[in-house]
């Protein structure tokens, strides 16, 4: 705890120094809410050094507030308009007058029943009923996703790969274009071979599978490299908040 205070002091000193160096640009914020935001920002950043009391505080606050945030969102944006208002519109007259006049849609009794079934987990007598609701959820997820993935990720991606491996542009051979297309077709084929489960990766098959791994590694390296900049932009955003909104050091 004492160590944490030392770090707090060092942090204040650092920002104080920055403030002094840029004296006169703008005054430090006098808004209490901005100070709260700045405190929480620094509390989270302090985790980079090590776990400490400020981080623990921020983390526990975050968990409590955000859990409630999503629950309230679910209540007001899903439960009230999409269930209660559908089953018995007059109830929501006080909160959503615009839709209180609509006719009720009684088939919404089904999700209500499923929701209650799911809560039966808490019942000492028939917790097994909650499995029915779960079975419904799992059935829905698997059924919907089977077709979706088949369509967009299987058919869609294969269709995009149906390309000529020799590209002719304006009547002459395009070396670059052909090379790129060959890499795409061979890359997809070898990548798929890498994923084969029931055949030993030996001989020619093994070579293709090795090529597949290299293609995957290029993919991973490229995606990683591409992302780095984005990750930094998030930090830039936070620093602008700390240095500008809070410290008043930016124009």
């Amino acid at each position, binding site marked *: 705890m004492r160590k944490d205070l030392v770090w707090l002091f060092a942090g204040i000193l650092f920002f104080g120094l*920055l403030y002094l160096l*840029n004296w006169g640009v703008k005054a430090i914020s006098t808004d209490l809410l901005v100070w709260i935001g700045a405190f929480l920002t620094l509390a989270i950043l302090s985790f*980079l*050094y090590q776990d400490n009391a400020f981080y623990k505080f921020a983390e526990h606050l975050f968990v409590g507030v955000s859990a409630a945030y*999503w629950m309230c*969102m*679910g209540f007001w*944006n*899903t439960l009230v*308009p*999409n269930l209660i208002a559908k089953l018995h519109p007059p109830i929501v007259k006080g909160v*959503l*007058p*615009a*839709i209180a006049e*609509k006719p009720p849609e009684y088939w919404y009794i089904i999700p209500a029943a499923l929701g209650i079934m799911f809560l039966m987990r808490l019942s000492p007598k028939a917790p097994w009923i909650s499995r029915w609701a779960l079975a419904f959820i799992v059935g829905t997820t698997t059924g919907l996703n089977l077709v*979706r993935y088949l*369509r*967009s990720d299987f058919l*869609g*991606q294969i269709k*995009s790969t149906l390309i000529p491996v020799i590209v002719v542009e304006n009547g002459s051979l395009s070396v670059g274009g052909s090379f790129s297309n060959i890499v795409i077709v061979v890359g997809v084929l070898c990548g798929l071979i890498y994923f084969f489960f029931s055949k030993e990766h030996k001989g020619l098959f093994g070579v293709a599978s090795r090529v597949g791994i290299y293609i995957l590694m290029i993919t991973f390296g*490229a*995606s990683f490299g*591409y*992302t*780095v*900049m*984005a*990750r*930094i*932009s*998030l*930090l*830039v*955003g936070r*620093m*602008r908040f700390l*240095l500008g909104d809070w410290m008043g*050091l*930016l*124009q």
Partner: protein
Amino acid sequence: MNPDNPKMGFFETIANIDRRVIFLFIGFAVIIPVLLSFSCTEEATPIVQAVYDEIESLPEGSKVLISFDYGPSTVPEVQPMIDALLRHSCEKNLKMYMMALWGTGHNLISESMQDIIEKEFPHKIYGVDYVNLGYKAGNQGLINVILTDMKKMYTTDARGSEIDAVPMMVDIRNLKSFDLILSMGGGFPGIKEWVLFGGDPGNIPVAGGATAVSAPLLYPYYPRQLLGLLGGIKGAAEYESALIKGYPKFKTHSHPAIDMMGPQTVAHIVIVFFIVIGNITFFIGRKREEGEKREGGVIK
């Protein structure tokens, strides 16, 4: 540290450098350029230009659905794209329908409306030129529903008016009523879901902006299933540049993405530097190891 071989100790220290030293470098690489307002210029790449050209080609009064599929955490990356796209759409007199698949997107719509449309284009009328449809839960399920019936989910707009009382909503039946879908965000649900559940089955053009992390993942959809894409802050900066090029009057407006490129570039160079150092020390370390092994009579 090995006291008999201080040089080796040095390389070992560098190779196994405490991550907190790297953290410190990154921190300074961002703070200093932010303080000095250092910036760079950008040129639009084809994938960004495609989005610009599509909006440029839409006739006046075309309906554009803009989905705010992001949260405060990605605001620095996505908001500049939204601002630029809204300015462009306003300038082209397109009808803007704003909605959110993310709960967090809800507020962002009101903020964007205030900051861009109401402030910079005060002649635009709510309900005629733009509307806030707000957030609805359901992720891809929501897209699935509005693909066939928009008003099943949107019984009111975000301000609580009955949906059919909003003039620009009268002739909207479902997603197919729109000329272009712009999904901004890139997480889940986001552009991928719009392509899979909206664009593909409904044959509606989809474009969008994504955080740089999700952009590579969306490349396979471009250009057939996805018209164009702004990838990360760089994409946003490119769009801002394209907009300024097309409409020089926007030069005086804010262009946060262009401003943000400076600190990112510096931090980037720091990371490249650490990768290089990491590899050099790794190779020197390995050479030494091999040398030692030979001395010990073990040749691998």
